[in-house]
């Protein structure tokens, strides 16, 4: 392979580095208006009135909208159509949009927003998981009072009671993972135009142009064919730009009403209110072990605080239970979960979507069990590690899997065993693992169509243009697609022209979420590229009189492997193919194999493949101040095959960075229902100066279904980092941090407890007494757990 596996720059790297990339907020159109949203100052209230007359009368204001102008509900999941573009009837959190203005400039728009006066009748504010589980509070969705429960789940695989009865050692632990947010550098922005003929175009900073397209068609009540959505270059998403947003819909509507382009760019404060960040999750975990540390059964309960809307929540809930089994062989497994509504900005998917929280709990509990049983933290992970080509008890199909190798390699590179025993007080190492999906097995709305489509058009001069709706959010998907096609056609990635993320120009790709693009878009590109190659090879074989099988595409030529001198240039080859077969336009697509197990909720967690990671973190803690300094992070990642190792390492470093932020600094803290600090000074993301060195170890497990064997790297590497930090703090100070983030005040509090003879632990003590629905009992897959199941693999 000449292109795949070669470390190289992104094909759009130069323009980004030089500041030439035009993000949505950089765009201007003639006559463009600036839009602003008026937002609720109430956490939970009935709207009595919204007076927009003064705003409308202000010079320079061209239009004002309120909720009733856009009354149709929407939501990313078909089961949660609970949002409106502007609040209708009531408001559910501080910062919820209640009205919108379009004006000739930002200053006028801002003044108009100040002139909009809303009056409210307050309702009970629900600001915690406990509060949501009280029966006498006003419902956030629905009328009257009652439990503010959004969704529940209750599943059992195998026999947990029996598994626990047979255990030699049982642990019960409670953990809390604080909510946090994506804080992408680029603020959300959208620019819309409406043509006199009725067509609407929206440029937006989104990860999912296809879903935004569908939402606009629904809410604007227009045929999808009359709407074009373009994902402009995205300055970071991390899951924060994966929902359809108020400002996108409102921009389109205001453009239609005024006949002029309208642009919205949110402020940082507004982005905190738009949110869709990591759910706060309270967890209770009971796990049985045999004397060697093998897991005999696990019972996992999760309580998710969802904020004011559904968003991805129904999926997030199941994700807090789905992937525990993807790393460890758990023969009997029970999962009970509940997601509640509260009057806070809505939670949603953030890097790792619903899985970093249970991963934190599981990895910390495993560390404690190892301690109890006198086993070292590496050994207990190896003895439980999932093996390649196996089924999990909850029916996940595992194919390629280098988990054990990840653990061994990262332990070796970091000198874990040596350090674990010998580091001086205050210093410590911790280890943890994780796994993540390479694309959700099912699309967000039910359909039988492919999840990714790619089209390739070849110009008569040999120029190759790849069309794909895959959206580059900084992860490098555009470069990945170009590399795959270049590999197939014997060209260089920089030879390929890319047209992406545009619903008018490109065939559907569901979007940049669930780490799906390399696996799904990459496979579609591979198929499309192969179709182009087949046509070119047929024409060249004809011309040279050589058998097709002996042709190779390399160095910009199509050559006979036996007699390279007789080959033709790529441009000539293309001309031959067009002459013989007409326009050289081919397409490819990808559809995940049918993987869902036989139970409700089985759609969450299934994926055609899983990436694996293991991390070791070394910390230096100041016991006086509680400040934890991370000296170094080692991270081994089973990537299957790197399409571009430089980008893979970049994603690993980014994942480690984000994980360290969540472990040590970041949390969405609230005073009641009011965010404590919706700004980047108060929300403590680490800066580049706070970042330790990271050693990335790439492990190729050559996935049987991934494009060239590739798997994901966008989300997986974050997962082990957070528990590895907690475990390192234990090794350094002898205290257990069962609640994120591990801030200095929590550490000092735990150390002071130790000094007073109490257990050195910071974390919640119990979970609410909530009655989960009856368990759905699911038979483990056939042959489980004794016989390892052989998987018939092959691209579908």
């Amino acid at each position, binding site marked *: 392979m000449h292109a795949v596996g070669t470390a190289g720059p992104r094909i759009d790297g130069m323009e980004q580095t030089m500041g030439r990339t035009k993000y949505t*907020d950089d765009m201007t159109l003639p006559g463009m208006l600036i839009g602003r949203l008026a*937002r*609720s*100052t*109430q*956490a939970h209230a009935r709207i009595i009135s919204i007076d927009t007359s003064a705003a409308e009368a202000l010079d320079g204001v061209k239009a004002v909208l309120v909720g009733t102008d856009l009354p149709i509900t929407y939501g990313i999941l078909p089961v949660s159509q609970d949002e409106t573009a502007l609040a209708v009837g009531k408001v559910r959190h*501080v*910062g919820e949009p209640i009205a919108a203005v379009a004006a000739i400039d*930002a*200053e006028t728009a*801002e003044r108009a927003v100040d002139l909009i006066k809303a009056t409210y009748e307050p309702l009970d504010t629900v600001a915690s998981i406990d509060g949501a589980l009280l029966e006498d509070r006003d419902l956030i969705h629905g009328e009257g009072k009652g439990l503010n429960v959004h969704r529940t789940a209750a599943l059992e695989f195998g026999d947990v009671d029996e598994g626990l009865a047979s255990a030699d050692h049982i642990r019960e632990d409670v953990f809390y993972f604080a909510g946090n947010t994506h804080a992408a550098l680029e*603020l959300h922005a959208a620019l819309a135009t409406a043509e006199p003929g009725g067509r609407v175009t929206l440029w937006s900073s989104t990860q999912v142009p296809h879903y935004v397209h569908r939402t606009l068609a629904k809410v604007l009540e227009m045929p999808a064919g009359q709407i074009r959505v373009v994902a402009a270059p995205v300055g970071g998403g991390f899951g924060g730009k994966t929902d359809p947003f108020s400002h996108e819909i409102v921009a389109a509507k205001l453009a239609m009403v005024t006949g002029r382009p309208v642009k919205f*760019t*949110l*402020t940082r*404060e507004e982005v905190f209110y738009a949110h869709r960040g990591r759910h706060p999750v309270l967890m209770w975990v009971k796990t049985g072990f045999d004397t060697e540390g093998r897991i005999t059964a696990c019972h996992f309960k999760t309580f998710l605080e969802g904020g004011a809307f559904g968003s991805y929540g129904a999926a997030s809930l199941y994700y807090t239970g789905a992937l525990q089994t993807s790393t460890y062989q758990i023969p009997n497994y029970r999962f009970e979960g509940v997601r509640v509504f509260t009057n806070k900005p809505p939670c949603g998917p953030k890097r790792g979507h619903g899985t970093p929280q249970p991963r934190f709990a599981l990895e910390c509990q495993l560390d404690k069990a190892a301690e109890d049983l006198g086993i070292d933290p590496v050994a207990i992970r190896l003895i439980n590690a999932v093996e390649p080509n196996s089924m999990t008890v909850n029916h996940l199909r595992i194919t390629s899997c280098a988990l054990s190798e990840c653990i061994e390699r990262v332990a070796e590179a970091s000198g874990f065993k040596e350090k674990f025993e010998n580091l001086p007080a205050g210093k410590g190492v911790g280890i943890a693992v994780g796994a993540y999906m390479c694309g959700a097995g099912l699309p967000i709305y039910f359909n039988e169509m492919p999840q990714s489509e790619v089209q390739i058009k070849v110009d008569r001069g040999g120029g190759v243009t790849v069309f794909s709706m895959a959206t580059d959010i900084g992860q490098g998907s555009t470069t990945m697609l170009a590399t795959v096609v270049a590999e197939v056609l014997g060209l260089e990635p920089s030879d390929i022209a890319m047209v992406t993320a545009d619903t008018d120009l490109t065939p559907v790709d569901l979007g940049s979420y669930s780490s799906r693009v390399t696996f799904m878009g990459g496979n579609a590109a591979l198929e499309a590229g192969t179709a182009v190659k087949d046509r070119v090879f047929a024409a060249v074989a004809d011309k040279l009189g050589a058998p097709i099988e002996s042709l190779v595409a390399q160095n910009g030529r199509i050559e006979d492997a036996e007699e390279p001198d007789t080959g033709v240039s790529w441009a000539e080859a293309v001309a031959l193919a067009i002459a013989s077969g007409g326009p050289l336009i081919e397409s490819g697509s990808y559809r995940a194999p049918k993987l869902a197990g036989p139970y409700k909720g089985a759609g969450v967690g299934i994926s055609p493949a899983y990436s694996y990671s293991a991390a070791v973190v070394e910390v230096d803690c100041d016991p*006086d*101040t*509680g400040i934890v300094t991370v000296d170094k992070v080692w991270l081994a990642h089973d990537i299957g095959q790197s399409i571009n190792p430089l980008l893979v390492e970049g994603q690993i470093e980014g994942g480690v960075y984000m994980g360290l932020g969540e472990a040590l*600094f970041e949390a969405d803290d609230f*005073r009641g229902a*009011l*965010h*404590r*600090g*919706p*700004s980047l*000074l*108060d929300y*403590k993301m*680490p*800066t*580049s*100066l*706070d970042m330790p060195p990271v050693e990335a170890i790439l492990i190729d497990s050559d996935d049987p279904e991934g494009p060239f064997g590739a798997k994901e790297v966008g989300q997986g590497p974050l997962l082990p980092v957070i528990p590895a930090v907690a475990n390192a703090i234990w090794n350094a100070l002898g205290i257990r941090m069962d609640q994120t983030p591990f*801030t*200095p*005040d929590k550490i*000092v*509090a735990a150390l*002071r407890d130790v000094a007073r003879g109490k257990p050195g632990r910071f974390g919640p003590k119990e979970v609410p007494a909530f009655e989960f629905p009856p368990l759905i009992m699911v038979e483990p897959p056939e042959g489980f757990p004794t016989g390892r199941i052989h998987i018939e693999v092959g691209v579908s």
Partner: protein
Amino acid sequence: MTIQVPPVGFVSAGTLEEAARLVSDPDDRAVLIAGGTDLVPKLKRHQAAPITLVSLANIEAMHGIAITDDGACVIGALTTLSEIASSPDVPTMLASAAATVASPQIRNSATIGGNLCVDTRCNYIDMPLTWRQARGHCLKDGGDTCWVAPASDRCWAISSTDLAPVVIALNASVRLVSSRGERVVTADSLYRSDGINYLTKTSDEILVDVTIPATTARTSFQKLRRRGSIDFALLSVACAVDVDSEGRCDTARIVVGGIASAPVSATDAEEFLVGKQLTPEVIDEASEIASKPVRAQDNTDTGQRYRKWMISVHVAKALTEAATERV
């Protein structure tokens, strides 16, 4: 959208006299601006609404560091924190404290004058406008209640200057010039424990320079903050101790910043130390004494309990480091 600064006039003064004249009438609502790293974010959040900003940046005479014949260090108010952090001429404690202020980019524009006059902070006021509307405006924000201590009739916003504790511990003085004349006051007396009227100088007085007398004191500056890269202090401690030839403490200055509306001098601890050897036991006792009178409020990051605990920890760190400093 990057939040815009609301419309405001801007004048760049060429001389100190001109600047003094421009801010002489309070009815003009003219406000001084140096590096702007404190003021501009506040304007964006609508925490202040001046009519005119009077920039000091072009007043040449207010830049730079000089050493006088008697060894005092005179620092022009417009000297940037980056210049101070890398200057061999300023006391080490001042350079090391300046290096911990904000981030490298901010230190390149931030000035020592702006730092000594920096507004007090509180997480009920240093918030975006929508947030403050949702919470209700606090006392410092034109409302009638301090949300930190609703029963109290004053504002409890926190003094957030890192350099004030340092210059106070070094017995510095500052020169204030207005169209009414000039006066020199001790750095200590510049501050008042009130979150709103936190300076004793009037709004027409310009801080022109800071004079730090020559000293033989051993010093240490300690700062607690969440991110080592950018954050304000949750607590800072500056200490300066003079020891005699026997190693006994002659004089001690311990000043705590970031915990109350003005820098707090730990006078009881200072007196306790006089005549004592700086042994670990003495340091521990002194740091307990220092922390006793100080209360932490719930108006910044991390809990009150923790910040209270950290006072003695940081005083002890500072004294320990000072005791072993080579001079």
